[in-house]
């Protein structure tokens, strides 16, 4: 040790002096006991907190405690919109978690006095939704629609509604919207429209395609009403993922007077490019009803174009004339040939059927269906490998519409 170190040591010795108290074994052992108690208490507190957190998460996830079965596969939308019947209180539109059925938010129209259109919600990717609100006047039991507004809202990761914004081009004064659809990228929204006011059966609906960024509108005019002649009425519009093509279900309708049936049945038709506008009669025929179900006993109740436009998912109802069971089928139809490619889902419903809605996610990977026997519970769920996995509520009798 150097001299400096020796001097320093002496100095430290002198500075330290003697400890004023003695550390005893008893004091150390008391401290050991105290440490053990504190450690076990801390462990207990942590365990309680973890258990509490787990319960809170479980309760939060399960909402009212309803569980709709096992966890859905990866890729399935985490939330869906469920719209109840308007005349069945409480007539509410809610967001539900797919996994648990828990309600995470309630959808409402931002403007006072407006109400959500039945089936008036369309889904785009990234948990974006478009909401159609009807502005009404007159008595509550017989309101008259004066115009429509289309709003956009996003869902947060926890299924809450971030905020509503009026979509550019979404103020449709004097128009009543019947149906709405959106492209997966959310750039285009298409609505079937008719003039606001009392329902006029002599008017065929138009299809309006709106660019959601610029508000630019393109109108596809319906067939003019000719008394005594069958006209094709456009409904069930759906857009491809990029919004370039619009597919709709054209149903022959006698608009006025007595019409001679044409015998052609319903048609699945396409408008391309969707944003061009023009006459609906200029649309391209994709598939005929007669190629899918017998005209005498079958009916098409829905059509959804696939994301890339190569096929169409068609919902068929077929009731054999000689007492066989009615079947409800979702069939994938080639857009090129109009022929069925495969049956996606089929269920016998007995003597007749009940139907509420047929919809899908923005990329048409997961199809939602609420259809079943004419009486009793109506299965509400989504199609997965030819099976219907239930959604909450399992009985879809009081569900008007769902989308995700």
């Amino acid at each position, binding site marked *: 040790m150097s001299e400096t170190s020796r001097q320093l040591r002496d100095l430290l010795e002198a500075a330290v002096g003697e*400890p004023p108290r003695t550390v005893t074994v008893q004091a150390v052992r008391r401290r050991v006991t105290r440490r053990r108690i504190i450690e076990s208490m801390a462990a207990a507190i942590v365990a309680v907190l973890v258990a509490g957190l787990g319960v809170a998460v479980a309760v939060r996830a399960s909402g009212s405690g309803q569980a709709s079965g096992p966890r859905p596969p990866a890729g399935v939308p985490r939330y869906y919109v469920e719209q109840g019947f308007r005349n069945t209180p409480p007539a509410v539109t809610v967001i539900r978690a797919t996994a648990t059925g828990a309600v995470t938010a309630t959808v409402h129209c931002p403007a006072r006095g407006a109400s959500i259109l039945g089936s008036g919600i369309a889904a785009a990717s990234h948990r974006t939704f478009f909401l159609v609100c009807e502005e009404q006047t007159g008595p509550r039991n017989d309101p008259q629609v004066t115009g429509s507004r289309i709003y956009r809202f996003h869902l947060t990761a926890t299924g809450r509604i971030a905020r509503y914004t009026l979509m550019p081009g979404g103020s449709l004064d004097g128009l009543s919207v019947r149906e709405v659809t959106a492209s997966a990228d959310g750039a285009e929204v298409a609505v079937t429209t008719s003039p606001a006011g009392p329902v006029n059966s002599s008017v065929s609906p138009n299809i309006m395609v709106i660019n959601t960024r610029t508000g630019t509108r393109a109108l596809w005019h319906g067939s003019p009403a000719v008394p005594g002649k069958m006209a094709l009425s456009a409904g069930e519009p759906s857009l491809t993922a990029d919004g370039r093509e619009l597919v709709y279900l054209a149903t022959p309708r006698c608009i006025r007077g007595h019409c001679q049936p044409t015998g052609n049945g319903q048609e699945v038709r396409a408008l391309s490019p969707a944003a061009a506008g023009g006459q609906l009669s200029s649309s391209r025929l994709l598939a005929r009803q007669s190629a899918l179900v017998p005209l005498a006993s079958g009916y098409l109740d829905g059509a959804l174009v696939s994301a890339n436009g190569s096929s169409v998912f068609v919902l068929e109802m077929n009731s054999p004339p000689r007492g066989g069971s009615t079947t409800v089928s979702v069939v994938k139809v080639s857009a090129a040939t109009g022929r069925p490619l495969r049956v996606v889902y089929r269920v016998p419903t007995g003597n007749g059927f009940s139907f509420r809605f047929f919809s899908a996610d923005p990329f048409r990977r997961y199809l939602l269906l609420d259809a079943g026997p004419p009486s009793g519970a109506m299965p509400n769920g989504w199609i997965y490998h030819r099976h219907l996995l239930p959604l909450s509520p399992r009985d879809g009798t009081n569900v008007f519409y769902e989308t995700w």
Partner: protein
Amino acid sequence: MDAEVEHFAHFVEARERALQRTAWLLTGDWALAEDLVQTALARSWPRWERIRRRDDPELYVRRVMVNTWSTWSRRRWRGERASAAVPDSPAPGDLAGELAARLAVRSALGSLTHRQRAVLVLRVFDDLPESQVAQVMNCAVGTVKSTMARALAKLREDPRLAELMEQEAR
């Protein structure tokens, strides 16, 4: 088990004052020093059976002590505790001189980093060989040497300490 308890009791009885003195040089406060020693012993006790089999249990306790003090030093809140008794007891002789020396040493040690302070106390005051200091500090012997050199260089810059060391030399 009884042998273990007995060994631990003997160790505490024999070494607690030396440990407290080292702890005072680390903390600069008797209450904290006592707390540090108790904590180090309490942490060592559950493993005493293994510790006593070693050649030098004290080295292990010192290591726990230095680590504990290092942890306390890193805390924003130092866990200050009220003490029932006044830690400094009256002393005979040159009280003012002793107090001045103590304050100077404490101030000089306070200017060092925690690592420098620990190395200096272990090497100079506890007179541990560099290899054992390295063991306690969990570092290489070369690191002990360089840290020690830096600590001494820093202390030499302290005029009050330099003056005290000159007086000590005379």
